[in-house]
């Protein structure tokens, strides 16, 4: 087991804690369905995931999960208000072309929204950038600039500001330290490696 897998289970656990049992959950950018499978097994949720890649959809179908291949915003537009009890956007926001549109739609079709992201403002990232002056390369940011997709990295301060500007209510937040394991209680924009937000309108 690689360390990355272990880190993954920490945010999975927090995401799971915020999910009510037997509810309807939508996962935006569901990948191979690991998180949804976990939520189905632990919370008996009625789950559906959205992803762009056929291989991910196939992996979800193999797990017995409902998954939809396509654009997440278009997907959400096909649903009435508050159709889902919770929408989850885990490690996806930094890849969105129009994060405001996705989050706005997610807060319309969902009663609650979980957003989890890597804090780009983490102190090691700042120092690395300052000293090396190059694109971050570490276990989290694994690719060279020339082999990366366009990304829109976000910091905790950016995200908090976004919620204020868009009048989005933050019901809960969880900041994890650089090990993505222990809680980070101080200056999260500097010391937290990973952030989770529970949002509502």
């Amino acid at each position, binding site marked *: *087991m690689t360390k990355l897998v*272990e880190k993954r*289970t*920490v945010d999975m*656990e927090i995401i799971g804690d915020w999910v009510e049992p037997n509810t*309807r959950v939508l996962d935006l950018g569901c990948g191979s369905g*690991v998180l949804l*499978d*976990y939520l189905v*097994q*632990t919370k008996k949720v*009625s789950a*559906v995931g959205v992803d762009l890649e*056929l*291989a991910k*959809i*196939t*992996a*979800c*179908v*193999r*797990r*017995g*999960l*409902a*998954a*939809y*291949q*396509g654009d997440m915003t278009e*997907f959400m537009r*096909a*649903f*009435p208000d508050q*159709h889902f009890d919770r929408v989850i956007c885990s490690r996806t926001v930094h890849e969105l072309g129009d994060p405001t549109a996705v989050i706005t739609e997610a807060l319309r079709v969902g009663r609650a929204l979980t957003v989890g992201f890597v804090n780009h403002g983490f102190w090691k990232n700042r120092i690395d950038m300052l000293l090396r002056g190059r694109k971050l390369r570490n276990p989290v940011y694994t690719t060279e600039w020339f082999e990366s997709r366009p990304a829109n990295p976000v910091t905790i301060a950016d995200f908090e500001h976004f919620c204020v500007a868009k009048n989005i209510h933050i019901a809960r937040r969880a900041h994890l330290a650089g090990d993505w*394991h222990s809680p980070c209680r101080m200056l999260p924009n500097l010391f937290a490696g990973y952030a989770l937000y529970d949002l509502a309108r």
Partner: protein
Amino acid sequence: MTDDIDTLPSAPGAETTPRHLAPGEVGLVAPRDFIYSQPFSFRSGQSISGFQLRYETYGTLNATRDNAVLICHALSGDHHCAGWHTPADKKPGWWNNLIGPGKAVDTRRFFVVCANVLGGCQGSTGPSSSNPETGRPYGILFPFVTIGDMVRAQKLLLDHLGVIELHGVIGGSMGGMLALRFATDYPRFTRRVLGMATTGRESAQAIAFNEVGRQAIMQDPAWNRGDYTKDAGPRVGLAIARMMAHITYVSDASMDRKFGRRKKDTANSDAYTFDVQFEVEGYLRHQGQSFINRFDANSYLYITRALDQFDLAHVDGTLEQAFAAVEAETLIVGFTSDWLFPPEQNRQLTLALLRAGKRASYAELSTDLGHDSFLLESEELYGLVRGWIERDQPYVFDYAI
């Protein structure tokens, strides 16, 4: 559905083992007939005194009688979806690449059933069958058939075979419509649905193409209001209908790749004639000619009419209401180059199922083969089918953090 599915060239040494004897193939198969000898009422209100369905099965029904997988064919398809009827057959059944021991639809595990639809002409009762009241073919006195009627007849066959629950039902194009109707009409019976390149209702464009086909048949004097003998009939009209429909099953890109603007070797050096000059012309004429030898023009009218009339939403008001009773897990697969039943229509089906609170998935394959892409030899497609039909054991999570 086109007749000529491009099959991969056979592997070296294939000559030593005939394909029908090769491991991983269902081998030689024989069709059977199911005779239902009680009155059968159609949705139109008309009825017949009984009917016959020609079908094939591969694999074995298990002791709990719940491992059946029903294959539903498209407009011009039939019950022969896998294996060979004789060692001399040039081609195996139309979905042989998908069905067989160890294939995506594994006949070692599943009892596979495929029947020619009611209203068809490949051995099932349809307009070319003899009307017991007159002793002559029904012609257009045959009752109007709907997709729901076809499904009800196939359910009677499955009951006859002792199937108590369908593990799954698979269909492309019209076959997908049948599969969806199984889910709505027999919700407890139908555990899984896989619809490919299908729709909940045809668009105006698809109806328009069907209408041109029907007009080609009905404007042929030999149609004679549907009254013709087996060897006669509107052969010209049916061939034209098939030529045009064939174009809608493929795509600009795939035709360009296959034919481009290449000319026939035999083409007259004089360009100013109407003889066949381009390969694509010769190909379409061949498609038309081979079709009239195996298909009945009246069946073509009846089945295209059934396709046009099919409207899941219309029956119950909305698609969500139509799907309200569904218990099946559904997988819908769309193909990017399908312009007859385009991806959007396949997506709409999935979204409606999800809005109705059902477990449904949508996957999309990038192909340039058009509507008939569902017959593609594609590991990606096989992987999807396997995932849908077999399902891995539940994943185990390590809760220790």
